[in-house]
C-alpha cells in the first residue's frame, strides 16, 4: 500500500513537472524578408507561473552578422502567466537562412530560454527599399465574354520609404460591366510591404469599351518606426480598353447553359440507393471551379421510361468555396437496378476559347416494389411541402402557328386602349348618338307641345304682315295686311285656322282693342265680299292698328 502511494505521488510529480514546461512561440512579419527589409519579431511566452515584466531583455541578444535586431517593447498584464515581447530588426543583405542564437529572458519568477530563431531572406519577395508606393492592376488580358466572371486585383505596393497603410473609395466606371469587390478590402501582401484588394467584373453587353478603376491609397512617407511620419492620400486610376463578345456560336453544344470558366464535376450523390417504385429520391450534383457559378442555369434532365424527373429549386451557391449544387427529384417508375440519368454539362473556357463537356457520373440505384399497370408522370414536386408544390416544369414544343383570340399579328404588342383610332371612333359614335338622342328628344317635345310650332309659325306670318302693311301704298292693301296679321296672330290662341276667324274672334283674343277700329278695318278688307265697303279713311288709324299687331306679336 505505501508503495502504491509512492507510485501515485511520483506520477503526480511527473505530471506537475511536465506541466511546468514553458511554452514559447514566435512569429515574424513578413515571414520571408527581402535583403535589407525591416521585419518585426514577436515572441509569445506562456508559463505556469506569474511572469511579470521581463528585465534586461536585449542584453543576451546576439543577432547574426549583417542583421540589426533590438528589443522594442513588451506586453504583460499583472498576475498573468503570459508575456509578449516585440523585437524589430533589419534583414541581412545576403540571401539564405540566418539564425538568431538562443537567448534567455529574465522574469522575476523565472528565467526562460528562447530557442534559436531562423530568419529567411530572399530576393523573390518583391521588397523595395526605395521608390514611391504604386498601384498595379492585375487582370487577365484577353477578350472577355458576356456573363463571365473576371477576377482581378489591385496590388498596392509600398517601399521602405513609402508604406501603404490602406485604401478606400475603389470604384469602377465602365459601361456594360458590373463591378463587385471580393474578400477583405485591404488584404496584406505576402511580403508585408503592401496591400491588395480583389474584385470581380462581369460583362453584360458586347462591344469595345474602356473600363476605369479608381481609388485612393493611404501612403505613409516616414518609413518604418519613425515618429515624424506623414500620411497622405494618393489617388490611382487604371484605364484599360477591353473587348467583350458573346460566347461563340460555333461549336456551342446544345447542353451549354451559360457556364463560362473552368469547372469540374465535384461529386454526385443520391439520397437513397434503394427506393421503392414511386418513392422520390434526390439527386444532387456539385459543380466546383472558377467561373460564373451564379449565372449557370441548371442542366435539364428529361424524364424517361425509368425515371420521372422534377427539377429542384436548389440555388445554393457558396462563393467562398466556389461550388454550385444542382438538385433534382427522381421518381423511379420501374423496379430493378437502374442508373440515374447522366447530367451533361458544357463549359466555355475563355482562356482557350473552347467548349468542354462535363458529365456527372451516373449512380446505381436498386428499385424495389412492383411496376404499376400504367405509369403516370408526376405533376408535383414530391419533395415540396404539402400545398406549396409547383407544377412540373419543362419547355413545351413551340408552335409558331398558334394564334389567340383577336391575335391578328401586330408589329408592336400594344393594348387596344392605347389606340387613337379606337377612341376616335368611339368619340364619333358617342357624338352621333348624343346628337340623335337630342334630336329625338326635341322632336318628341315638339310633338307633345304643338302650340310652340303654331306660335312660331303665327309669329313669322304676323311679322310678314306688319312689314307688308307698313310698305302698303293704298288703303285696301294696308287693310288686307292688317286683317291677315290679326287673324294669324289670334289663331294659335283659339286653336283655329286663321282664315276662319271673324271680327268677334279677334275681340275674344284682344278684348281691350277698339271695336270700332276693328270694325272699320274688317269692313275695309272684307267689305267687297259682303257688299258694304267702308268709306272712312284708315290712314289716320294706321298707328293704332300697327300697335295692335305689335301687341299680338309680343304675346306670341
Amino acid at each position, binding site marked *: 500500500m505505501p508503495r502504491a502511494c509512492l507510485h501515485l505521488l511520483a506520477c503526480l510529480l511527473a505530471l506537475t513537472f511536465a506541466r511546468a514546461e514553458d511554452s514559447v512561440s514566435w512569429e515574424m512579419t513578413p515571414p520571408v524578408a527581402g535583403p535589407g527589409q525591416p521585419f518585426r519579431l514577436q515572441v509569445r511566452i506562456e508559463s505556469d507561473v506569474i511572469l511579470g515584466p521581463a528585465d534586461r531583455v536585449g542584453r543576451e541578444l546576439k543577432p547574426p552578422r549583417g542583421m540589426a535586431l533590438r528589443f522594442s517593447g513588451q506586453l504583460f498584464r499583472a498576475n498573468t502567466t503570459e508575456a509578449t515581447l516585440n523585437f524589430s530588426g533589419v534583414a541581412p543583405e545576403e540571401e539564405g537562412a540566418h539564425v538568431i542564437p538562443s537567448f534567455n529572458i529574465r522574469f522575476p519568477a523565472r528565467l526562460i530560454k528562447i530557442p534559436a530563431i531562423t530568419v529567411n531572406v530572399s530576393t523573390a519577395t518583391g521588397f523595395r527599399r526605395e521608390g514611391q508606393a504604386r498601384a498595379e492592376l492585375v487582370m487577365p488580358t484577353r477578350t472577355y465574354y458576356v456573363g463571365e466572371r473576371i477576377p482581378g486585383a489591385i496590388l498596392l505596393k509600398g517601399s521602405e520609404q513609402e508604406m501603404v497603410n490602406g485604401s478606400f473609395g475603389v470604384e469602377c466606371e465602365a459601361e456594360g460591366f458590373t463591378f463587385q469587390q471580393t474578400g477583405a478590402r485591404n488584404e496584406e501582401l505576402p511580403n508585408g510591404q503592401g496591400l491588395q484588394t480583389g474584385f470581380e467584373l462581369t460583362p453584360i453587353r458586347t462591344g469595345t469599351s474602356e473600363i476605369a478603376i479608381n481609388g485612393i491609397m493611404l501612403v505613409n512617407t516616414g518609413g518604418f518606426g519613425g515618429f515624424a511620419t506623414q500620411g497622405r492620400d494618393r489617388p490611382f486610376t487604371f484605364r484599360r480598353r477591353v473587348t467583350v463578345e458573346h460566347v461563340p456560336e460555333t461549336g456551342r453544344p446544345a447542353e451549354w447553359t451559360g457556364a463560362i470558366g473552368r469547372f469540374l464535376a465535384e461529386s454526385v450523390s443520391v439520397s437513397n440507393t434503394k427506393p421503392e417504385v414511386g418513392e422520390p429520391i434526390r439527386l444532387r450534383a456539385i459543380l466546383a471551379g472558377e467561373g460564373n457559378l451564379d449565372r449557370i442555369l441548371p442542366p435539364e434532365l428529361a424524364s424517361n421510361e425509368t425515371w420521372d424527373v422534377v427539377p429542384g429549386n436548389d440555388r445554393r451557391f457558396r462563393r467562398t468555396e466556389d461550388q454550385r449544387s444542382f438538385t433534382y427529384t427522381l421518381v423511379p417508375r420501374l423496379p430493378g437496378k437502374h442508373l440515374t440519368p447522366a447530367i451533361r454539362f458544357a463549359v466555355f473556357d475563355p482562356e482557350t476559347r473552347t467548349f468542354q463537356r462535363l458529365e456527372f457520373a451516373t449512380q446505381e440505384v436498386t428499385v424495389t416494389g412492383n411496376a404499376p399497370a400504367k405509369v403516370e408522370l408526376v405533376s408535383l414536386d414530391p419533395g415540396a411541402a404539402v400545398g406549396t408544390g409547383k407544377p412540373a416544369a419543362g*419547355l413545351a414544343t413551340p408552335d409558331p402557328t398558334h394564334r389567340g383570340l383577336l391575335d391578328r399579328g401586330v408589329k408592336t404588342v400594344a393594348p387596344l386602349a392605347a389606340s387613337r383610332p379606337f377612341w376616335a371612333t368611339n368619340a364619333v359614335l358617342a357624338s352621333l348618338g348624343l346628337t340623335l338622342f337630342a334630336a329625338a328628344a326635341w322632336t318628341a317635345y315638339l310633338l307633345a307641345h304643338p302650340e310652340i310650332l303654331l306660335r312660331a309659325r303665327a309669329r313669322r306670318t304676323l311679322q310678314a304682315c306688319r312689314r307688308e302693311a307698313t310698305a302698303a301704298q293704298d288703303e285696301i292693301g294696308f287693310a288686307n295686311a292688317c286683317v291677315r296679321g290679326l287673324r294669324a296672330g289670334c289663331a294659335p290662341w283659339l286653336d283655329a285656322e286663321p282664315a276662319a276667324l271673324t271680327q268677334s274672334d279677334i275681340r275674344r283674343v284682344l278684348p281691350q282693342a277698339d271695336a270700332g277700329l276693328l270694325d272699320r278695318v274688317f269692313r275695309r278688307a272684307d267689305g267687297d265680299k259682303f257688299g258694304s265697303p267702308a268709306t272712312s279713311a284708315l290712314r289716320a288709324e294706321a298707328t293704332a292698328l300697327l300697335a295692335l299687331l305689335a301687341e299680338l306679336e309680343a304675346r306670341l
Partner: protein
Amino acid sequence: MRTWWLLLAGLLAAPLPAAEPDADAGQVAYAAGDFVGAVEKWQAAILAQGATAGRLAALGNAEWKLGRKGRAMLCWERALLLDPRDPVATAGIRHAQSAGGIERPALTWAENYASFLGADTWLVLATASFWLVVLCLLLPRLRRRAPTEWQEKAVVAGATIFLLSLPGLWGAHVYARRAVVRQADIFLRLTPTARGEPVSGVAEGDIVRTERPFNGYVRVTTADGKSGWLQAREVEPLWGGGLPANLDQKPAP
C-alpha cells in the same frame, strides 16, 4: 368527265399547307438544337408578318435555351398578353420559375379574372356591350315606339356583359404595369439617385410591378413585396414592343 369533276372538287376541298416557311425553318432549327438560327428565323418572321402569341412563345423558348432569361421572359409574357392561354408561354414561365429561379409576382384576383381573356378582348367586349345598350335604348326613342322584347333583352344582356367586363378591364390595367428586369446583377435602390443605397438584389428575368417614374428611375415592387427604384433602362415593360429591346445598341439621340 365525272371523274375529272370529282378530282377537281377533291383538290379544291383539300386543305392547303400553311404558307409560313420562315416559321417552319425556325422550328427545324430549334429541333436541331440550333437555337441561334431559330431565334433569327422567328425574329425575321415577326418583323415580316407581325408578332403573334405562337411566334413570341417560340422565340421565348429559343432565347431561354441561349441563356437570355430577360428576353425569354419578355417574349413569353408578351405572348400571354396576346393569348392568355398560350400553352408554350405558360409552360415556359412555369419552367423559368421552377428551374430558372425567376421571381414573378402572384396574380391578384383582378389579374386572375382578367387572364381569362386578353386585355383587348375585354375592351372589345366592354365597348361592344356598351354600344349595344346605347343602341337598344336609343333606337325605340328615335323610332318613337315602345322598345320591343328583344331590345329589352339585349339591353339586359349588354349591361350584364359590360358590368362583368369592368373587373377584367381593371385587372388588365393592373397587369399592364408589369415589367421584366433586363439587366443582370442589379439592385433595388432606396432612392432614385445614382448614390441610392442598395436595398435588395433582383435578377435578370424577374417580373416586377412598376409604379411612378422619376428622374430616369421607376419605382418597382418585386415578387416578395420589396419596393425600391430601378433605372428605367434596366426594366422593359410588357406592353409597347414587339421583339425585346436590344440592350447592346445605344438609343438614338
